[in-house]
């Protein structure tokens, strides 16, 4: 076995030192009754090339094995990834290191994550960003818990029903054993979170609004901030498309207390939904309430600049049952990837890519409108929007997939049963006019 270096001679010598007569004898402290009888029932081991063939066969059973046109977003976005990113992030000094518990030999990870934190605060206009979370949904659930813990008098959290359905389900899961409750804020006919409905709500510790929301619409965050202030509750925003902040006003500029986001758009492959990158940012005031790792700048004993994991008294390995969260391993390498991506596209690139996403989405919307689709709402959006499709679309859609590997929109009915025949479309910088025209022609 090529991963196991032990020769027979090594084993004998080492057993002698270990005082064991055989490899089995090493396990003598394990009662026999507890031991496995017979071997594991697993497939025969494969050589690297048998594995390659096998894996390529599996991969080819996913439609994604081919060049396909992805007009679906809904939390996972099809963006260009520059070639330098996978090269750099795969350098084993980054990829095969553990969490930087020994900062002297982890300055690469630490400076990288410090820069990541900084760029994320720039991106969102927030004071502090953590070193990452699993995904937006889990980060948002942690935000909800912070709000509930901070506001002991209330036991509810108001969550827009245009927060990603997956995220809402996660919040529910996290809240279930706590006795806290998630209340949904309905949406208006414009596909926006219903401010009036929210205003009427009582006993809430915080409110969470996604913008751009699940329908792609840009919410009026200023209005929500005002309500949060009025109610003296925490204002939480979330997002699934990080590139939106290349052009939109930043959540921090509206006074968000906590921001949860998905960073998959920042150079990370879709990978069937994970691993993505949970972003979590907050105001300075909430610093000690934030979950997860934080990297801080400091000096070494010789006065040189350096970085360490810091404020760990919030964390499970120090505080155990009193920790602000149970999170330990997070999505560090993807945070590093995002930092690399943001450094690559830079201030100019992010603006241009963001605008390009919007341009394409506007074009796609009008192309679909021309092909007989009806815009479901009329609110401003970034790169996603909802269309009511002609009756026969669902068949045509399947046909587009099998004939052209083109995924035209996500059926919204499973998520919003009232929205039958409604589809959520997404256009990114990767989709060409030609592809959009082809789609329009095929579905007209």
């Amino acid at each position, binding site marked *: 076995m090529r991963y196991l270096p032990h020769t027979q001679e090594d084993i004998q010598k080492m057993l002698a030192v270990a005082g064991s007569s055989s490899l089995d004898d090493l396990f003598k402290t394990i009662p026999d009754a507890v031991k496995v009888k017979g071997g594991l029932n697993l497939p025969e081991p494969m050589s690297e090339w048998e594995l390659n063939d096998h894996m390529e066969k599996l991969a080819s059973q996913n439609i994604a094995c081919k060049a396909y046109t992805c007009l679906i977003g809904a939390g996972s976005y099809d963006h260009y990834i520059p070639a330098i990113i996978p090269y750099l992030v795969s350098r084993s000094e980054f990829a095969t290191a553990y969490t930087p518990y020994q900062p002297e030999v982890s300055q690469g990870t630490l400076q990288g994550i410090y820069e990541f934190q900084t760029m994320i605060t720039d991106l969102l206009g927030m004071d502090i960003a953590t070193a990452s979370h*699993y995904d937006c949904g889990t980060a948002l659930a942690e935000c909800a818990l912070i709000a509930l813990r901070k506001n002991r008098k209330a036991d509810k959290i108001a969550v827009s029903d245009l927060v990603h359905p997956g995220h809402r389900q*996660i919040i529910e899961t996290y809240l279930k054993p706590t006795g806290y409750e998630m209340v949904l804020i309905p949406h208006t006919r414009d596909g926006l979170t219903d401010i009036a409905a929210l205003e009427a709500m009582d006993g809430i510790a915080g409110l969470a609004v996604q913008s751009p929301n699940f329908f792609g619409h840009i919410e009026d965050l200023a209005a929500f901030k005002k309500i949060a202030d009025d109610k003296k509750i925490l204002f939480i925003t979330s997002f699934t498309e990080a590139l939106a902040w290349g052009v939109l006003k930043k959540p921090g500029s509206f006074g968000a207390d906590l921001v949860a986001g998905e960073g998959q758009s920042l150079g990370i492959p879709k990978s069937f939904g994970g691993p993505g990158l949970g972003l979590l940012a907050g105001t300075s005031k909430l610093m000690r309430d934030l979950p997860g790792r934080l990297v801080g700048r400091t000096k070494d004993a010789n006065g040189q600049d350096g970085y360490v994991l810091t404020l760990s008294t919030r964390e499970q390995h120090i505080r155990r*049952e009193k920790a602000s969260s149970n999170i330990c391993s997070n999505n560090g390498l993807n945070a590093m990837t995002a930092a690399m991506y943001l450094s690559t596209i830079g201030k100019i690139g992010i603006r241009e890519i963001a605008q390009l996403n*919007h341009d394409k989405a506007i074009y796609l919307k009008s192309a679909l409108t021309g092909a007989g689709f009806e815009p479901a709402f009329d609110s401003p959006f970034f790169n996603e929007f909802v269309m009511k499709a002609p009756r026969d679309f669902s068949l045509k859609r399947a046909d587009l997939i099998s004939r052209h590997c083109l995924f035209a929109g996500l059926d919204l009915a499973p998520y919003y049963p009232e929205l039958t025949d409604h589809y959520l479309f997404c256009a990114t910088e990767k989709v060409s006019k030609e592809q959009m025209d082809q789609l329009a022609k095929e579905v007209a």
Partner: protein
Amino acid sequence: MMTRRPGTKGLIFNEPNVWDKSREGRCAISLPKSDVERAPLDPALTGDAPDLPQLSELDVVRHYTRLSQWNFGVDSGMYPLGSCTMKYNPKTNEVQAARQGFAGAHPLAGDECSQGALRLMYDLEQYLAEITGFDAVTLQPAAGAHGELTGMLIIHAYHAKQGRQRSKIIIPDTAHGTNPASATLCGYKSVNLKSGPKGILEPEAVAAVMDEETAGIMITNPNTLGLFEENIKEICEIVHAKGGLVYGDGANMNAIMGVVKPGTVGIDVLHLNLHKTFSTPHGGGGPGSGPVAVTRELIPFLPIPRLEKELDTFKFVTDCPDTIGRLHTFYGHFGVMVRAYAYILTMGAKGLLDASRLAVLNANYIKESLKNTLNLPYDRPCMHECVFNDARQQAHHITTMDMAKRLLDYGFHPPTVYFPLVVEGAFMVEPTETESKEDIDQFIDAVKAIAKEAETDPEKLTRAPVLPKVTRLDEVAAARKPCLRG
């Protein structure tokens, strides 16, 4: 030659923060020309572009290349970080995960268009169930702690379903910090349980605290002292007798693959760390993956979506009335699953068993080789790791931390230090099976040399490390006046 210490000095590079290299107008990306019209957004909605650094492509490449050189990975040298199973991360796994059909797959493409991914996940669930001896597995949890939360939610849901919730959970003193923290998230109060003089739990102690207010116990087996909880069966019976459930922290599964199936000894729920036992890279802090395995009775509570097979087709299923719900926006860390799946197929049953045997052999070899040098609080046959401490070095005012830092100068990543908490000044060595005897011998020699230095030249330790780019960092200042962004 082989006994020369690996650590030496070399030329590396200073590198400022990425924004210090920024100059207005640079851009490391070339964007395609737009083929559609510009469609400006309402200016009321737009803001300034974020102030990201502006660099050329070479600037970016050089920045991260230099940063990488300040890091220590498994590929750099032995990384015997206890409880972390820093084994070799096979490169072929990276190739598999990067296949366009996997890396490019959209999570909402639909079951029909995702059969390859679903089949892989389904089979991986089966393999993990076989390895752990459980009836079903969910791959959704994104890391070990997330798996713990999943498991505790399942236990919580189980008790709820029984009609009577419980309020406490038993946590041994050797438990990892995530255990009590995960229990807290489910509203359970942790009841701390002392391990016995042999470093393992005593059934009587469990019996003494287990009651009908207690939801169960969280056991790590082998525990974080590297010792097998020999009384596991009895303990499970005690807990079960009072209506409780047994949670297994499977982070240390690397010791017992093919030797013990936790699902057959009374454990009800178990999480695994694919980024430990199953060779997926830790990435300097994740992403990992923390699948959870359960017994038949607990299947209804597993998170959704569940995977089902019908003839030769796979599909996601969500109508599970008793499910604890969803824990990840999509299906968990699929990219990590691909790597673990590739690992299992590469190893096979015999390979996994050998991995555990050799991991245990390596640990015992180190334990025996060093127990005359470092104090060994629990001198018993260990599993995949062994825990020393600095009791003998205290006479020279040398701490575990000093020895750890000095190991850096010798070219080794230090062991885990000051954990588990039950051993004061713990020095917790987990070599893993992928380290060769020669590398382990070098490590042993290094520790012995350092122990000698502790007596003869303690400054070498208190001033360590001298070789890395920076020396000891002021963590107190970092926490007192946090500077978390540039």
